[in-house]
């Protein structure tokens, strides 16, 4: 690393580095609560010290009075809810502070800025429950209003939204402009931390928790698998959640077919601030001469594109990684593979079972060839 215009480098618990940045940038990051997880700082990019060892940073890191902070957060929750109630009947263009006839992409940019502000991952683990709940309500409110806008002006099928200008020359980038205030009836509520721009040193290493309704925990024990029930001879029903854990709520995803009326935005559709590499779950899947159709029956995900569809009550977010043990009955062979959830069905459309489409992202070539051969033979046997 070479020093240039900046004066500081910072390093987090995972050894990731940001720099060089100036002191005002560092102070700004601290005020915006972006130093969670940052543990060390350097003036040359080579020798590192703890944040508290630098006097000019120690003042930024002073711990606020917890009781005072909690009171402020409670008051903020009340204020936010009051604003949300007042905004309930306001037209969308005023809520998102855009022109009434603004194109969809302009609405989306405004919505995403607000969604970012109120997304659950923005909150500290120690945030008062009232403010956590109020922030969730705000996220849900803006998301609902955005869905209504989409239903009103979105083209019928638009997997890729219209082009957005993200660079500085011809318009505001998605986040260059601070999240627009929600006018006229809703004024932005700054994050609790922003009013107390002093992250407590003791909790700097702790990332914010994932939203409660997102599966983001690594599997700690052996996952369970239940064989296909008699009434379902075609597909395995795979259990992904460890035994004893209630299944997550049903949801669609950004990659699912948008429901009539436009997209549905949920916190789990966003990639949050926390690192999610550990979000891998595990499933044991038994492949039989009848259940092989998990590799063939779905047009979107089948073995021709390294995909499969598993029937399961336990939906996990699109994009999640799933480690699998595929056991092929009769061949005494078990294949380890990794897949990514690329599609999911809650079964409500009557066309698809409740389950998930997976794409194999890590599988040995020989193993993949074996799967294809197994499927081909099973299909041939089934047609006899």
């Amino acid at each position: 690393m070479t020093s240039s215009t900046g004066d500081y480098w910072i390093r987090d618990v995972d050894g990731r580095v940001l720099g060089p940045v100036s002191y005002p940038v560092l102070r700004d990051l601290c005020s915006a609560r972006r130093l969670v997880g940052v543990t060390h700082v350097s003036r040359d990019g080579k020798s590192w010290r703890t944040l508290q060892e630098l006097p000019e940073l120690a003042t930024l890191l002073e711990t606020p009075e917890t009781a005072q902070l909690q009171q402020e957060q409670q008051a903020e929750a009340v204020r936010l809810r009051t604003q949300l109630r007042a905004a309930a009947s306001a037209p969308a263009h005023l809520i998102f502070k855009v022109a009434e006839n603004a194109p969809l992409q302009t609405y989306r940019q405004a919505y995403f800025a607000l969604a970012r502000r109120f997304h659950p991952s923005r909150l500290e683990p120690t945030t008062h429950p009232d403010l956590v709940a109020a922030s969730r309500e705000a996220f849900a409110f803006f998301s609902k209003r955005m869905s209504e806008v989409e239903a009103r002006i979105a083209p019928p099928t638009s997997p890729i939204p219209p082009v957005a200008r993200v660079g500085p020359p011809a318009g505001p980038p998605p986040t260059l402009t601070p999240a627009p205030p929600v006018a006229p009836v809703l004024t932005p509520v700054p994050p609790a931390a922003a009013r107390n721009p002093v992250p407590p040193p003791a909790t700097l290493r702790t990332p914010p928790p994932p939203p409660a309704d997102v599966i983001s925990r690594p599997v700690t024990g052996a996952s369970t698998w239940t064989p296909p029930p008699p009434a379902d001879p075609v597909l395995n029903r795979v259990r992904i959640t460890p035994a004893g854990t209630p299944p997550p709520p049903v949801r669609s995803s950004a990659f699912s077919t948008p429901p009539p009326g436009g997209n549905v935005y949920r916190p789990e559709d966003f990639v949050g601030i926390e690192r999610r590499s550990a979000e891998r779950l595990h499933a044991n899947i038994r492949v039989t001469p009848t259940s092989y159709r998990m590799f063939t029956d779905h047009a979107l995900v089948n073995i021709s594109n390294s995909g499969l569809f598993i029937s399961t009550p336990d939906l996990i977010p699109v994009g999640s990684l799933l480690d699998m043990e595929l056991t092929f009955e009769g061949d005494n062979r078990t294949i380890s593979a990794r897949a990514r959830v690329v599609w999911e069905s809650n079964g409500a459309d009557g066309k698809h079972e409740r389950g998930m489409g997976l794409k194999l992202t890590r599988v040995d070539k020989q193993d993949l060839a074996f799967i294809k051969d197994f499927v081909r033979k099973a299909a041939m046997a089934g047609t006899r």
Partner: protein
Amino acid sequence: MPEAASLLIVDDDRFVREFLKDAIAGVPVEIREAGNGAEALARVEEAAPKVVLLDLMMPEMSGLEVLRALREKAPGCRVVVISSMDSELLIAEALANGAHGFIGKPFHPDEIASAVQEALSS
């Protein structure tokens, strides 16, 4: 048929790389990946990507350093920074150092697809 433009994803978090790949699956680009800054600069020499999606905080070489190196190595390349470090001053600094755009976290896949399409067409 014209050759698809190349896009480079630079992020040390494999999950994020996978998510980004999914997000731009509908955009006709040839996607390459790099897990750190040095790898990113090597990929840029190989493939001359038109667009780079760049994380700011990575081991060894930070995204800002990669950004500055890219400005010299590939001045025509459009770099969209994606980072949870989205304070206003840092965004301004990234843009001043040649970033084409900045997307904060948490982000939605639609934002990524839009940004990539815009960068490709500008």
